[in-house]
């Protein structure tokens, strides 16, 4: 993509605009313009940012709108509904009066989506859950991309034995059962008295760092593969040969010649990786081996909602819709980003 494109539209346009002077634009600027013209991608990006803002505003919602502590057990609590005071968790009806059911969605400021089995406000929890899910998703994707980039540059550039070692290591990581790692780590942390002591700081079992690191590490091979392929092919290109002829050392070659050309691939992969990590985190949390109580994430709330699925489905449906919208927005935006950065891959619909 960074290879100079004489036919790139930008230059023609500028000539028209500036009445004759040809002003060059960097490929990044060109990409930016293409992206800005893609309305759907922009809408997706806006949706994603909106979700981020709303999720990080969870404390405000909980405190000022819903007036609730979404992490405190409220089994015997009551709220005022249509002027009447009702139990948040109500005893069953019928001849035997069995069962206790939390209230359903009120569609008002308090208990908008209803209560869960602990009497907590589900809507407030969904927002807080969004915070955890997004933090983990964004950070682990960034971590995976960063590590993959480093490994791919080293392996692709130096080739030979280094390449073999790193690639086989990546194979091993890819074949490794992520659930085993997650469960084992979770159990170690839960059962150790003061959390995992890593010298500088300690991680408690409910720390978000655990799922973050696990997910970040297991996706390194996934990003590593395409980048390494690209580094391999870039290594043979003329401009690298030219730089070597100029006497450039390995370090400069990697970071000043190859890296900028690989960067666009990483940028395209980033939103797609965020989408993937969010889905993975929700799956791990659903299985109770991701985010641990007292923290909440979209996945853990779906887990909570499973026991209530047939009576109070909104507890499970709410967070699921949030995941769907977030991941969809990221995928649509990712598509648009890819089209903007590599116009040859874009299908022109004319």
């Amino acid at each position, binding site marked *: 993509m960074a290879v100079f494109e004489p036919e790139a539209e930008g230059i023609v346009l500028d000539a028209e605009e500036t009445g004759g002077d040809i002003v060059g634009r960097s490929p990044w600027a060109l990409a930016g313009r293409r992206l800005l013209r893609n309305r759907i991608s922009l809408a997706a990006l806006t949706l994603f940012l909106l979700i981020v803002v709303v999720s990080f505003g969870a404390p405000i919602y909980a405190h000022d709108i819903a007036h609730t502590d979404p992490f405190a057990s409220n089994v015997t609590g009551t709220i005022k509904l249509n002027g009447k005071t009702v139990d948040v968790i109500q005893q069953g009806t019928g001849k035997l009066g069995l069962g206790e059911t939390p209230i359903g969605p009120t569609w008002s400021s308090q208990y908008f989506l209803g209560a869960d089995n602990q009497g907590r406000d589900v809507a407030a929890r969904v927002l807080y859950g969004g915070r955890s899910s997004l933090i983990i998703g964004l950070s682990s994707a960034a971590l995976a991309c960063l590590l993959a980039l480093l490994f791919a540059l080293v392996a692709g550039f130096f080739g030979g034995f280094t390449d073999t070692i790193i690639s086989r290591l990546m194979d091993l990581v890819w074949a490794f059962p992520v*659930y*085993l790692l997650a469960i084992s780590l979770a159990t170690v942390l839960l059962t150790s008295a003061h959390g995992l002591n890593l010298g500088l700081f300690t991680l408690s079992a409910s720390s978000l760092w655990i799922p973050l690191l696990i997910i970040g590490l297991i996706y390194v091979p996934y990003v590593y593969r395409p980048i390494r392929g690209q580094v391999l092919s870039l290594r043979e290109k003329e401009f690298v040969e030219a730089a070597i002829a100029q006497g450039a050392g390995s370090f400069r070659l990697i970071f000043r010649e190859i890296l900028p050309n690989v960067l666009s691939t990483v940028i395209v992969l980033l939103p797609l990786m965020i989408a993937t990590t969010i889905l993975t985190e*929700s799956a791990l949390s659903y299985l109770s081996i991701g985010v641990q109580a007292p923290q909440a994430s979209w996945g853990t709330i779906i887990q909570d909602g499973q026991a209530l699925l047939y009576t109070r489905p909104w507890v499970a449906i709410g967070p699921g819709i949030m995941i769907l919208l977030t991941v969809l927005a990221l995928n649509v935006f990712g598509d648009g980003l890819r089209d903007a950065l590599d116009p040859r891959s874009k299908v022109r619909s004319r």
Partner: protein
Amino acid sequence: MLTFAIRRLLGLVAVLLVLSILVFLIFFATPGIDPARRMAGRNPSPETIAQIKHEFGLDRSLPVQYVLMMKKLFVTRDLISYGSQTKVIPEITSAAPVTFSLVIGAAVIWVVFSILVGLAAAVLRGTVLDPILMILALIGISVPVFWLGEVVNLFTQSRWHGFFLFSWVPPLGYTPLTQDPLKWFEGLVFPWLTLSVLYVGFYARVLRANLIETENEDYIRTARAKGISERRVLLRHNLRTSMITFVSLFGLDLGVLIGGGALLTEVVFGLPGVGLLTYNSLTGLDLPVIMTTVIYGAFFITIASALVDLLYAWLDPRVRPA
């Protein structure tokens, strides 16, 4: 070709070996469980626990225990589970058909549908249907499969179960094919559909992108110039090349799924397959079963990866190792 196969086979053995050692070490690094205690039951006396420890070789050193376990797993094939105290291999052999049923059925569905959708989107490029199909595909890969399964259950088991459309849906669970083929089928329809949604979305997009990319290749232009009809160009020339990526990705995904990757679908629909067995053994920290399922899964993943590389090299001569 032969050296390639041998090299990959050795690689497979190496991966399995390293993996099994890692699993072993992780298990023993995880505190809080004494397998002898678990096997002893509810309120055993300390002597009972000591006896069981000795009988199962749990008082030996780690390397010895590792070798003993591998021997019991591969040679004598009588490895015993810590949890149920019965043989592990029959547990896997009864879980495997469930996973096969789920995965093969879903694979058939998603291959057919993704080819249809991918072809349609490529052909209908330029009309409004192309973006619509692609948005649907995107939704497919954006929805968490376990949540989709829960929603499907909500409607087919509870909310709309009374309507004729869903009243035939049996309660969650698995009926073996040999026991009742109709029930087997009915119980798998929705798991199949749920599992394939994700893959239809993904593969449709992959196929469409490949089809469009190869559109611009010279040999396609040549074929058109020769006067071959559009349909033949699409199906006989374009599709065949585009299927290369499709097939290789499919092989990898199939390997992962058969090895237990359909865990979430199995959990949500109550199917006692390999994925569920793996998960239960992990949460129960049942090392013999964990070891067996991890090796089983890694075996399929690695074999699939090797087969795909082989297939890719055969299909696309440009990629063959020099």
